[in-house]
């Protein structure tokens, strides 16, 4: 009985999480614009690739997200390293300042950035959009790199120096590989935040740089086109594929390491 309930519970939870996505996928094959099932079609996928507005907003979104997350990976790692090396007082202040940016309601960030850009007479466009995205991406990276730095053995850096590295080499050869997982996690998080973001993009994008969420939102007066379902399906499949591939490679690598280790001990 208990077993049944645990299983049932898991099914319910996963249904709750994934049912909406599967319904969306099903409707991307629906042969009608309405929410009533009417037969199978691949037309929306064809239309999707023909719809210039959707494709260009998608490319804008990806372009902005990739640039913003890469830039914030560099800035965030540097920032985290700096904060890590600070004295207690400074550490607290800067860490909380970073948290604050993350906790701040998006709408506040969005409006204040818009005011800032207006104040400096910047025309909204790619530049403002990317700057805005970097603003909320950097804290994400900082916050995921900091714990890695804390976990790292304090003497690692000094040991590298002792063994003849100069500070730059010590950072790149000893510290960076150690905190790399944190940087990658942070960057990927930043990437997803950036792709997701609606509120801040809404206030800072210009006539040439509309992102996907804004485009979808603007469709709501008329009917949201099923092309969006098709696009979401594709994005979901891509993310799923990446996840699976990364995991498979991870498992293989672990096996490989285990094999090597056992071979080593046998000797």
């Amino acid at each position, binding site marked *: 009985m208990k077993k049944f309930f645990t299983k049932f519970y898991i099914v319910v939870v996963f249904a709750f999480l994934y049912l909406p996505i599967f319904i969306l996928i099903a409707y991307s094959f629906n042969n009608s614009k309405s929410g009533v099932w009417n037969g199978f079609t691949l037309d929306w*996928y064809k239309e999707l690739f023909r719809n210039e507005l959707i494709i260009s907003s998608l490319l804008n979104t990806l372009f902005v997200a990739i640039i913003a997350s890469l830039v914030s990976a560099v800035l965030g790692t540097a920032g985290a390293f700096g904060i890590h090396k600070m004295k207690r007082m400074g550490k607290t202040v800067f860490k909380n300042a970073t948290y604050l940016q993350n906790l701040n309601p998006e709408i506040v960030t969005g409006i204040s950035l818009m005011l800032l850009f207006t104040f400096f007479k910047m025309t909204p466009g790619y530049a403002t959009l990317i700057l805005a995205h970097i603003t909320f991406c950097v804290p994400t990276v900082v916050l995921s790199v900091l714990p890695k730095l804390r976990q790292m053995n304090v003497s690692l850096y000094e040991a590298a120096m002792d063994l003849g590295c100069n500070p730059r080499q010590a950072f790149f050869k000893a510290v960076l590989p150690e905190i790399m997982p944190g940087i990658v996690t942070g960057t990927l998080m930043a990437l997803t935040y950036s792709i997701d973001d609606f509120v801040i993009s809404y206030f800072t994008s210009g006539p040439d740089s509309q992102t996907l969420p804004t485009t979808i939102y603007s469709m709501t007066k008329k009917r949201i086109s099923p092309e969006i379902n098709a696009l979401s399906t594709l994005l979901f499949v891509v993310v799923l594929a990446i996840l699976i591939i990364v995991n498979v490679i991870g498992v293989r690598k672990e096996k490989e390491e285990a094999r090597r280790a056992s071979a080593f001990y046998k000797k």
Partner: protein
Amino acid sequence: MKKYISIIATFVVVLALATLGYFIFSEDEQAHPEVSEDGTYEGGRITVDNPEYYTKFRGRDITLNVYNWGEYISDGSDDSVDVLEEFKALTGINVTYTTFETNEDLYAKLSSSNSRYDIIVPSEYMATRMINEGMLEKLNFDNIPNRKYVDTAIHNKDENADVYDYTLPYTWGAVGVIYNTKYVDEADIGSWDLLWNEKYSGSILMFSNSRDAFGIALKRLGYSLNSIDENEIKEATESLKEQQNVNQSYVMDQVFNKMESESAFIAPYYAGDCLSMMDNNENLAFYYPEEGFNRFADYLCIPKGSKNKEAAEAFINFLYETDVAIANCEYIQYFTPHTAASELIEYDERIALTPALMEKSETFKALPGEINQLYDSSWIEIRSRLDMNEIVIVAIILGLSFAVLISITVLRRVKKGKQNY
């Protein structure tokens, strides 16, 4: 490190697949307009009155920023005409096209940031407000020869004095009631009262934008939908609160799904969109209420700060080419203010407006600031009213989660206590 390389490799593969898909899918049957070497326009699907007019922009590297409603231009899907593509090929002018959702969004974007748009499409009341605040340029009608096609029944100097020098209408339409014949008695239809009818309690929808909702309530009470009388507005507010008792929900685009899947039976909406719902569900029917209803138009305007006013005017002129007007009218399904096009198009008789009906229609006017505020605060008052049921449900949920929280804490304590032994 290998792991990251593989991530990047996956990305590359995916991108490659996507481009491949793009080429497979987009290699389509449709002829694309092309510009031949001598700069003439070929292979397009439209004819224009005077091709000569559009040639002067060629080679000048102009980009127009167009800001329009979502899904509001014929875009080449379902074998329709791709209006922007045709315009680019014809003139050599590049167009960046972006979309907004409400008049208020448009206003906010335009008034508070340095965005440079060349063409915007506000509804009449918002166009008036923008003109009053000096945000729009006057049009130079010498550059828009196709102005001769404007339907004077929709747009004339007397009725539209406020906006006359600044704009030309893009589309127009009217608000009516769509209902499901399977569930709604024929005897009950004809008036706005249907939206208040208790017989259909829980199956009635209402606009979630204040101007349209108040318009309906005011019309039902026999007032103008531009009422500035505080008592009338109060009465309308009460009436909307009363409507809330039979209302299922406040909607905009959700109306499509709800009506088509028959989870609601009665809703007010824009005639052109109702037509597309009726196409998807044959039980749906439509009428214009006898008390009068809102007739609206969306206007093509050039905001101050446009750097390419002449090219923007060419764009407006292009939208007034007969073929383009027909294409847009068929795509959007709203009425066209273009005389030659409306002669060629036969409007669906279910939503067609007879002269007698035209008499009953009224357009929105811009309201003075304090009246606007009164409408806003009344709307908030209506929408933020929780009914008893909702309060009870919220209380139960809060109580339950609190109980769960406490029991978890207690359980933990107990467990810890046991371990300590």
